């Protein structure tokens, strides 16, 4: 039995009542699925989020959790109304009449634009706050590490711990050790082409450009362990092998290591 | 069975026999085509100038430019003057074409065309005489400023070449008498002509000032 195609003409329940009936069902479905979705996300997120050992990384992870929590109702809105339409309003074969000629009233337009703008504003404020937190200058006790990228390896130097006769390097400069709970900042450059300096666990990432130096934010590793430095910009043949380990160790161990290379330990 | 609302009686105003486009439409499409092409070209020019300007500002490793890089002022200025004069001749010709399309104005067009070809020749001469030496085994050879100059002079040469070719084609039309009744052709070609002149001046100023 076909539905009335013109508002106001008779054909079973009035279109207005039918409309609210469908709308109500869809909205209930939306609310329920959103709640379920958020619950599932909050249970599962720990398995999916990146492993991190810095506050910066924690903030980035929190951002991912919050954004996803907000995104779930948005996604469910589209999916529910879409799948509901396709299930409930579908015809058997070629339709014999037209659908209800709906147009978005001022309320819908203003409401939709308003809500999406508010969401956008929230994202923006959150992002600006995060951005502001990042751009804190290095304090006097920040450990500076000079990173030089080249095809296809990383070399590291500790300029602040210089001994007479040259910077502190170990293993031809290819070993990166860091003391736990000490803020560190990386100053990065390249000898040849563009490379991408990245330590996921510390939440630092910045490109290595030839002829320029770039700096990462200041981060403080809070857990001892072994993590990875990888290259994230395609830099030629052995890009995939351009990775190395970074060892976060206790301050005592770090100082012992520095001293063994003839450098000055950090206080 | 079609349920599309079509009434198919009167021919549309811009369509007499139903197959030939009206002059008004032909003029509109010529205008639109050339202006859009100019927009695309302008974006190329803007990209080159932005890149050159930023390289200058970055001055990576302090190696952007040495003083001896600056091309000689005289020849470049002369080439630009020839170009501007060509634009003026074109303008005079175009004014004369309005409404009457008299052949008497053709010498101005010829002069405009010859000057454009002259500008092209001068531009190539300037390019060959920039004095930038390529050491045989140095890679790279030119510093960033020299690179920008080479790019802009090359781009200018391409502009002048295109304008010359367009001018020759228009000359063909004049000789065959196929310009009458098509006032939009001088107008639309004029857009491109003046654009070439202005773009040339802008590029020259950029090289002089950066």
């Amino acid at each position, binding site marked *: 039995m076909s539905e009335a195609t013109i508002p106001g003409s008779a054909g079973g329940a009035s279109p207005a009542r039918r409309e609210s009936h469908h709308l109500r069902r869809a909205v209930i479905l939306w609310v329920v699925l959103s709640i379920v979705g958020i619950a599932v996300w909050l249970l599962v997120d720990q398995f999916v989020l990146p492993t991190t050992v810095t506050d910066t990384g924690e903030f980035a992870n929190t951002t991912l959790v919050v*954004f996803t929590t907000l*995104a779930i109702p948005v996604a469910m809105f*589209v999916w529910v109304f879409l799948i509901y*339409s396709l299930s409930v309003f579908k015809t058997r074969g070629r339709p014999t009449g037209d659908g209800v000629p709906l147009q978005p009233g001022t309320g819908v337009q203003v409401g939709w634009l308003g809500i999406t703008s508010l969401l956008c504003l929230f994202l923006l404020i959150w992002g600006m706050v995060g951005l502001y937190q990042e751009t804190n200058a290095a304090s006097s006790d920040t450990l500076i590490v000079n990173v030089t990228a080249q095809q296809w390896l990383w070399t590291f130097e500790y300029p602040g711990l210089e001994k007479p006769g040259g910077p502190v390097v170990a293993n031809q400069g290819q070993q990166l050790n860091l003391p736990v709970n000490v803020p560190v900042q990386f100053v990065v450059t390249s000898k040849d082409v563009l490379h991408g300096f990245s330590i996921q666990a510390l939440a630092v990432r910045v490109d290595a450009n030839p002829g320029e130096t770039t700096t990462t934010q200041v981060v403080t590793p809070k857990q001892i362990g072994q993590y990875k430095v990888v290259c994230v910009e395609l830099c030629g043949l052995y890009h995939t092998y351009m990775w190395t380990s970074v060892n976060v160790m206790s301050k005592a161990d770090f100082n012992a290591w520095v001293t063994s290379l003839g450098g000055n330990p950090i206080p | 069975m079609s349920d599309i609302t079509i009434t198919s009686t009167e021919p549309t105003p811009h369509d007499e026999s139903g*197959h030939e486009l009206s002059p008004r439409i032909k003029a509109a499409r010529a205008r639109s085509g050339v202006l*859009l092409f100019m927009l695309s070209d302008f974006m190329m020019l803007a990209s080159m100038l932005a890149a050159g300007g930023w390289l200058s500002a970055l001055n990576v490793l302090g190696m952007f430019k040495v003083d001896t890089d600056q091309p000689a002022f005289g020849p470049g200025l002369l080439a630009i003057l020839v170009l501007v004069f060509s634009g003026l001749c074109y303008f005079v010709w175009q004014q004369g074409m309005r409404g009457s399309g008299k052949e008497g104005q053709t010498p101005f067009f010829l002069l405009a065309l010859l000057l454009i070809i002259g500008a092209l020749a001068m531009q190539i001469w300037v390019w060959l005489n920039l004095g930038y030496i390529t050491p045989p085994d140095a890679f*790279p050879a030119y510093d960033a400023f020299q690179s920008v100059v080479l790019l802009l002079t090359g781009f200018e040469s391409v502009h002048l070449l295109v304008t010359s070719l367009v001018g020759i084609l228009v000359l063909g039309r004049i000789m065959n008498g196929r310009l009458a009744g098509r006032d939009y052709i001088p107008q639309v070609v004029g857009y491109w002509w003046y654009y070439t002149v202005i773009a040339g001046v802008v590029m020259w100023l950029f090289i002089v000032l950066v």
Partner: protein
Amino acid sequence: MSTIATPVKRQNLLQLLFPSVVSGIILGVIGAAVCAFIVAHVVTPPTPDTLDYAQDATIVAAYLGWTIFFFIGIGAFNGVWKWGFGRRDETHAEELQLAGKDQGLWRYFRYTTDHKVVGMQYLATVLLTFFLGSMGAFMIRLQQSQPGALFFTTSTYNTIVGMHGILMIISTIVMVSGPFGNFILPIMIGARDMAFPRLNALSYWLFFSLIPVFLSALFLGGFPTGWTGYAPLADQTGPGMDAYAFTIMLFALSTAIAALNIVTTVITLRTKGMTWGRLPIFVWGVVLSVLLGLTAFPAFFVSEIMVMMDRVFQTSFFISSLGGSNWVYEHLFWFMGHPEVYVIALPSLAVAAELASVFARKPMYGYRLMVSGLIGISVLSFIVWGHHLFTSGSTTALDGPFMLDTELISIPTGVVFLVIVGTLWRGRIWVTVPLLFIVGLLVNFVIGGITGIYLADVPTDEILHGGMFVTAHFHFTLVGSMVFGFMAAFYYWFPKMLGKKLDPFLGKLHFWLFEIGFVGTFMALFYAGLKGEARWQASVPVEFATPNLIASLFAILIAASVFVFIYNVVITLVRGERAQANEWGAKTLEWAVPTPVPLENFEELPVVTSGAYDYGEPEPEEAAVGAPAQAQAEG
């Protein structure tokens, strides 16, 4: 009504072959060889001193020779010559000749001006480039299914990644505007052809001519930069890079010409009554898309000129030791690169809106809203490119503004979602294969769009840039959304363009295999990206082996879907059932003309009195000639 004054003879084989693509290729190859020879032996003979760039100079000369002589051979310059030096304008009969009248299938192999021929040429070529790109994709998934570069060497793998990327980018930019923008759009606005028919043929053949140039990279050692062609790696690397750079230049030229043709056509050749407010949304989407391309692609063109100059003329645009900077390349590239993804997106989103209305038998839920949404996306797309460069070190002061603008794009995008979902809501929905692909587009675009927000936020970009999360995001948008839109358009317009109906069962199988395979593959890669896997891994690190294996297994479903699709197309062309002239009961003008569409489309140009989406509306007072009253009819 015949307007032929002089009868035109049917052409013999020689006249068909010359000029045609055959003569074009022959002359092009000769031209390439001659120019290469001249440069190699006369201009820059390869001495030990010049070896560095002599090779590049020779290769570029070969490409230039190929291009110029290919177009001489195919007869592209004949029209230019005639414009200037011809004694008279072309007669109508001569124009029909150029449009391929009475040439049978040969017209597809010549410099034919009929927009329908150009549309079919684009369709065939895009399907080819898609296929080649897909083969690249499956090779990538094969390599990444196991740690250790087991199947391809690292060098080969890097080239495969780059070729897959460029082939897909080229295909997706052109996939809707090329075939359907050419074939369908002029009919939709009530025109007989495009504004510049000869330029139309030119834009297609430029697209064609870049394919041999691009594939020659395989014989020149490939290229290691990936699809972005970043300098200074691009400066430093072997001759395959010249193929890349020249391909881009030809492509930029092709799309610029196509763009000015399409925009001029819509401005000047709309039939009477086809006001801007009645323009089908598909036309809006294509026009905005090509306008974006026209203004954005020149920056890429310039960046490739600079790469070529660095390689051939020893300049140092990107060599830091002499004042060059890779940031210049990156910004030029991404100034193009971001509008480019909207060049890809807008036509598919417009197709989605178009089809939603047809298959729900409902007016578009906010036509003006949709147009504003598309315009809003277009305008904003120009000022967001910095979000690709948050970690480059070059935009620190501008990170905030770029983040703001990027997040703002979610607002017009949201409007687009509202309109399409609202159009389907309470419709009489006919679940056809095109509609299934539209639904897939919307489902996938939600994920693609939301993950874009994560990348737009600077703090999260710090842990995601350059990783597989980015790869999964842009595949969800470009493939899961926009390629699905192309598939919808393909199934939708196939009956009009080829006169047959694609098998719906195979179509649905294609859809489900593609969707399930696609979602599985890229959700696994999202996970890998979150956990820290970087992009462009020829040898997948051991810690990411599991998600990569899962992704590769799901990719088998995608491969299966491709073959189902090919099978469906072939079997339909060979023995499919004939389609009706208005297969779907739609209201846009292309469905009012017969199938196959005659040369010049309309006997008399139509006069339009209403929009294309007035389903369910009461019939206007003047009854249409030959059109039945329909709005009041019950089922």
